[in-house]
């Protein structure tokens, strides 16, 4: 099982990883960095999840039992920030690090040292962010969307640390994105034309462009906040001639593409997984690429649909409503393509496929509620209620998170060299599936019945569904510790994985042994 492959005599290159802790601190190897990203993301997933458990525990019953409103607001804020910037985004960067070089036949990422740096910024950022919870004034309590002036004039002292943490995360993401673009554009194996690239590579390429387009805008946004707070400017303060609504425009100019940043790579992964287990090529590859690109383009002109009740003029409302409705077209194309890929295939349901199919169905449900939210007059009723919470958890949990789980199971044999335990994997899927639906489906109901989001206590009419939600959330949360167990078990042993463990799989990553050797494709493979 020794992973010796020919390294073609780079004298200055070690043949394997360095020993000890310094391997991880100083590594420039894309697989090591991918692993670091994935572990970091998973630990943040558990941390952000534990914040969610606090929220759900408080909402288990009406009345204030466990935490006070101040702390509750910090929990909702931190849950959002940690999940978005700490769990989902780094997980996708981890997958990109591991898989993109393997998929395009590159020896490593294009900028390995920068790769190391962009990872290590993240723990620094999150230690800074999470430590604010222990400061006397408490951590950020203004929601992950941090609307001014609640996040400026009325913010706790810790907001400055929050701003610096966002800056670090932003720099990390931007460097990661540049690396991905450089790798994909410059390091593809001969013959790997753009239109031959696996969709995961395509979606990541588009995601990376979104990242470099909008993360700087977020950086600008928090910089303006910083200046308002400390240097006497008035970008967002009405008193000095600024405008709190401007904040929302700038934030959502970043925020809406950000939503797609969190879902496009999952689209790509699922577009590899469904054909594999359907034993049939992906239906409509070209249209998938164009659909992804149009979603990315449209994401820049729909931001104000988050602001329908802010009081933008009628013409603005109509424009943003129509533009938002348009997104349903390319998204629909994708879903139809996945369904057609399965049609008349030869289907099996290993864990990655279960997660992928659940992804398609549940993400579509999130898409439907998205369509409803796009209707501006109806949004007057949905905005800022639990209906919205249900909507974005349906696109992010079975969307982004299930996409990541599907990818993890799909490529775990390649990473570890062992097959995971299929029974345990399926158990993980079904518990997650049930827990997730129990937690988030009732949120549609309480939202429609009139429960606003971000409240620690509620009227009795919402009590029953909230209890169901909480039980589902606890179930979903506990299940993820079980996932940790499955992963550790797979790393430590299990049936050895062949180079290509899935008979229907396509792609360069399956042409190398499992586990993937420390150095791969030092001579570029030939792609027909």
């Amino acid at each position, binding site marked *: 099982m020794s992973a010796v492959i020919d390294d073609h005599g780079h004298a200055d290159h070690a043949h394997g990883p360095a020993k000890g802790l310094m391997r991880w601190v100083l590594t420039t190897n894309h697989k090591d960095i991918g692993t670091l990203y994935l572990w970091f993301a998973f630990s943040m997933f558990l941390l952000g999840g534990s914040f969610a458990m606090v929220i759900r525990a408080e909402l288990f019953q009406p009345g204030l039992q466990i935490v006070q409103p101040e702390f509750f607001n910090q929990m909702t804020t931190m849950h959002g920030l940690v999940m978005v910037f700490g769990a989902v985004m780094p997980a996708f960067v981890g997958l990109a690090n591991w898989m993109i070089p393997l998929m395009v036949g590159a020896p490593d990422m294009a900028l390995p040292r920068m790769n190391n740096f962009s990872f290590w910024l993240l723990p620094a950022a999150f230690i800074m962010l999470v430590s604010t919870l222990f400061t006397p004034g408490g951590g950020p309590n203004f929601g992950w969307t941090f609307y001014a002036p609640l996040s400026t004039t009325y913010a706790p002292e810790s907001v400055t640390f929050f701003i610096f943490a966002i800056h670090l995360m932003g720099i990390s993401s931007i460097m990661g994105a540049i690396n991905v673009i450089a790798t994909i554009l410059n390091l593809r194996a001969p013959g790997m034309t753009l239109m031959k690239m696996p969709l995961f590579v395509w979606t990541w390429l588009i995601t990376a462009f979104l990242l470099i387009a909008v993360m700087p805008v977020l950086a600008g946004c928090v910089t303006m906040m910083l200046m308002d707070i400390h240097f006497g400017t008035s970008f967002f303060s009405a008193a000095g001639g600024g405008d709190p609504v401007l904040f929302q425009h700038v934030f959502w100019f970043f925020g809406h593409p950000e939503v797609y940043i969190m879902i496009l790579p999952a689209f790509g992964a699922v577009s590899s997984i469904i054909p594999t287990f*359907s034993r049939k090529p992906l239906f409509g590859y070209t249209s998938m690429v164009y659909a992804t690109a149009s979603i990315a383009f449209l994401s820049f002109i729909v931001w104000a649909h988050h602001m329908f009740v802010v009081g933008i003029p009628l013409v603005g409302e109509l424009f943003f409503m129509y533009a938002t409705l348009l997104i349903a077209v390319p998204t629909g194309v994708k*879903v139809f393509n996945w369904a057609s890929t399965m049609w008349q295939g030869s289907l099996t349901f290993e864990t990655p496929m279960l997660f992928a199919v659940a992804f398609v169905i549940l993400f579509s449900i999130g898409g439907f509620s998205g369509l*409803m939210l796009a209707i501006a*007059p109806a949004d007057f009723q949905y905005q800022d209620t639990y209906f919205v919470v249900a909507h974005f958890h349906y696109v992010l949990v079975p969307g982004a998170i299930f996409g990541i789980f599907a990818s993890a199971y799909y490529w775990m044999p390649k990473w570890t060299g062992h097959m995971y335990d299929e029974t345990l994997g399926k158990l993980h899927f079904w518990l997650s599936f049930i827990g997730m639906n129990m937690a988030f489906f009732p949120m*549609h109901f309480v939202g429609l*019945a009139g429960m606003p989001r971000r409240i620690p206590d509620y*009227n009795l009419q919402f009590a029953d569904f909230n209890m169901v939600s909480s039980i589902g959330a606890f179930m979903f949360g506990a299940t993820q510790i079980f996932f940790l167990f499955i992963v550790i078990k797979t790393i430590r042993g299990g049936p050895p994985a062949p180079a290509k463990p899935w008979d229907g799989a396509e792609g360069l990553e399956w042409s190398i042994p499992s586990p993937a050797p420390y150095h791969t494709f030092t001579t570029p493979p030939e792609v027909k």
Partner: protein
Amino acid sequence: MMRHPHVWMGLLLWSIFSQAQAAWTVNMAPGATEISHAVFDLHMTIFWICVVIGIIVFGAMFWSMILHRRSTGQVAAKFHESTTVEILWTIVPFIILVAMAVPATATLIKMYDASEPDIDIQVTGYQWKWHYKYLGQDVEFFSNLATPADQIHNKEAKGEHYLLEVDKPLVLPIGAKVRFLVTSADVIHSWWVPAFAVKRDAIPGFVNEAWTRVEKPGIYRGQCAELCGKDHGFMPIVVEVKEKADYEKWLGERKAEAAQLKELTSKEWTLDELKERGDKVYHTACVACHQAEGQGLPPMFPALKGSKIATGPIKDHLSIVFHGKPGTAMAAFGKQLSEVDIAAVVTYERNAWGNNKGDMVTPKEVLELKQAESK
């Protein structure tokens, strides 16, 4: 009994359904205005369109998941492209979207037409309460959460309108077009009454418009919808919609109150003015017991002329008029007389019939006492 199973079935369903009404509400309510009904219809239309699309797409997926499994011996087909199909499922959804956008646009245009209102109300968000001002009417007040802290902290049973009750609701007449001018004094709030389908952000420094016309009298409840800090979950909105006459009566009372308040706070009362007014008040409210010359009818009704109370510390005097004396015929006039009248009558008693104290209670002091008591 089993001869009518459908009856029992019906009863069972009915009981489940009526239960569902209580706590398991799953849908938006149609609301109480033309706009809210329009929004509800839009919501349901789009919901059913989604359901139909869902059934088709998920149906196809489940079809292949059941019939096209490898275990059924299925051999995978090879097709992976069809331009016709791709074009079809780009165009058909587009047409459906246009069909959705048309009624949505119409409703939105109606929602934005706040012109020619009958009543203008300024709604101002504060951390964490709402302030309502009836423009041109000199009526304004704060509306605070009325749920006792003990209910929130689980020390007593929660009421039906837990967290959705206020001390002073906004009152509107039926049938009138009401324009809300929504703004904020601190952070961003959002004024939301689901039954009216009105939700507008209250933004500091800016004024936003919304409107409603409610057709049915009733009490409508809503909440702040934008995170505004610690007690975001504790600043409900209650709107009481009354018949026109009841509304006018209510408004009249509020105006009188406001006028009175203005009188209290704006006017500087002199001792003579208070004495003069107190004379009148005394001779309507007090004279029956304490008699015209303050001599009283001892022992039942003590004299005020030269009495310890009327010549003693002014505070005690005010207190006894305000609170009454339990176990005696002395009533608590704090609830019965206006601040001006109480101040006047106390001042009068201390400066009549040879009680020449020369001091006075101002209406403001009475108001302060009243406010201190009500806390």
